[in-house]
């Protein structure tokens, strides 16, 4: 693992090369040296899989840049004709078609108001176009947990923190879930929707996420346990 900066050439070579976040293949045809056609687009730690086929860069930031197949939490900002415009914290609002929901037809559309929260997947993210979202699995046409999020609260955190929360081995959500029942939906755009029975439990989750955020407190499992004991939940 090494640290790279934007513009650095990455010597990634494999017959079936897959590039992850932060890497870009430059399409310079006349480039004689094929190995230098991959460059880094952000600063961070360079990682690759065991067989050198998958490469990606890990870093922390606060501004979300959409990428396809990522799970995001957005809020409806406008109703437009056959769909909605959704704020997902990126530079541009995303568009969500009203037919991209489970069981939606021309007659039976979801009734979402401005200000509603949705859990969705980015279905299209092109650098020259507005991102597009969908609230179902395109193959099965089932909701798979996507759709409107009612009640609860949205915690904002750094992008590294919400990626960590998606890791099943991360300590925070199991630790909190052991104390009281909770629901959570993690978007990789730096928003985490949480819901618990009582206000102080929801507030405790919000404060724990903030305290564990590497961009804020950066506490580890032991310190979070001590912190949680001071919160009286």
């Amino acid at each position, binding site marked *: 693992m090494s640290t790279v900066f934007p513009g650095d050439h990455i010597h990634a070579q494999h017959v079936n090369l897959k590039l992850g976040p932060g890497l870009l293949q430059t399409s310079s045809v006349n480039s004689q040296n094929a190995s230098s056609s991959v460059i880094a687009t952000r600063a961070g730690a360079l990682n690759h899989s065991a067989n050198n086929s998958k490469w990606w860069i890990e870093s922390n930031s606060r501004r979300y840049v959409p990428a396809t197949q990522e799970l995001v939490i957005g809020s409806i900002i406008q109703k437009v004709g056959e769909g909605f415009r959704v704020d997902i914290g990126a530079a541009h609002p995303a568009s969500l078609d009203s037919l991209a929901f489970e069981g939606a037809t021309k007659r039976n559309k979801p009734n979402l108001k401005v200000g509603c*929260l949705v859990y969705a997947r980015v279905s299209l993210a092109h650098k020259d176009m507005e991102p597009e979202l969908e609230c179902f699995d395109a193959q099965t046409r089932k909701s798979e947990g996507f759709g409107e999020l009612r009640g609860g609260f949205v915690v904002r955190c750094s992008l590294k923190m919400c990626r960590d929360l998606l890791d099943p081995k991360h300590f925070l959500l199991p630790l909190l879930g052991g104390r009281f029942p909770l629901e959570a939906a993690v978007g990789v755009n730096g928003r985490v929707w949480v819901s618990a029975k009582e206000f102080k439990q929801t*507030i405790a989750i*919000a404060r724990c996420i903030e305290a564990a955020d590497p961009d804020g407190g950066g506490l580890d499992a032991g310190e979070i346990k001590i912190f949680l004991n001071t919160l009286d939940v």
Partner: protein
Amino acid sequence: MRPPSPSIPEKEFLFSALKESQRIDGRLLLEMRAPSLTFGPDLGWVECALGKTRVLAQIDAKMVKPLPERPFEGILTIHSEISPMASSDYEPGRPSDEEVTITRMLDKVLKRSDALDKESLCILAGQRVWHIRLTLHFLADAGNLLDCACLAGMVALKHFRRPDVEVIGDEVTVHRPTERAPVPLAIHHTPFCFTFAFFPDIATQPVLDPSQLEQRLSAGFVSIALNAQKEICVLQKLGGVPLGTDDILRLVEVAVAKAKETHEFVEARLREDWLGRKVEVR
């Protein structure tokens, strides 16, 4: 692009939690985030943080010709431009309503309250005065930029020291800091600003030092600028929340207590920093 207003679940949760006197960050209703001050290598370079809100204040002084209508007074100018660095809600160029409010309030708190003795900045009447320039850089916005900026600006004025000057007849000599110790600015009093946020539901009590979400969802603000000697410099009310005299007096009492605390904290930090700068001259 205007920032989208907070979503319905966020709004409902904040209002119902506030009704039970609970705030999202676990503070009490009238509790401030503890300020923290960081001093830079230069005098008059102060970074003030209220939670994740951070403002950097910097002072420099130069000699200029005074304004013809005020030949005995120095000049204090405040530069406060909110760049998109603070938050993506701010746009470069066109000042937002919030920026205009902050700029006007800073002008009232730091300049028109006569915190700084402008006549002491006069070097040679009608010829030469000190021009003190305070630049505020808004580094991060997590709510209540105004109080943070006022605190940063005030502490920077107290922290700054200008070069000593000597006037013999018409001749002005500026001494280097290595020759003569720089002198602090003459400060009459130190006002601090405290902002309370009110919510659309009248039953909800006001909160001190609102966070970004509280600030967005509030229906009105009351900002009180006062010093530790209980002298109110500015009282500003924004938004259409009806308030009685008793309500205002109660807020003033809270602000008085907070001003005393903040004053002691600032004095202690300045003293600490000054002791750390002591250089023995043999």
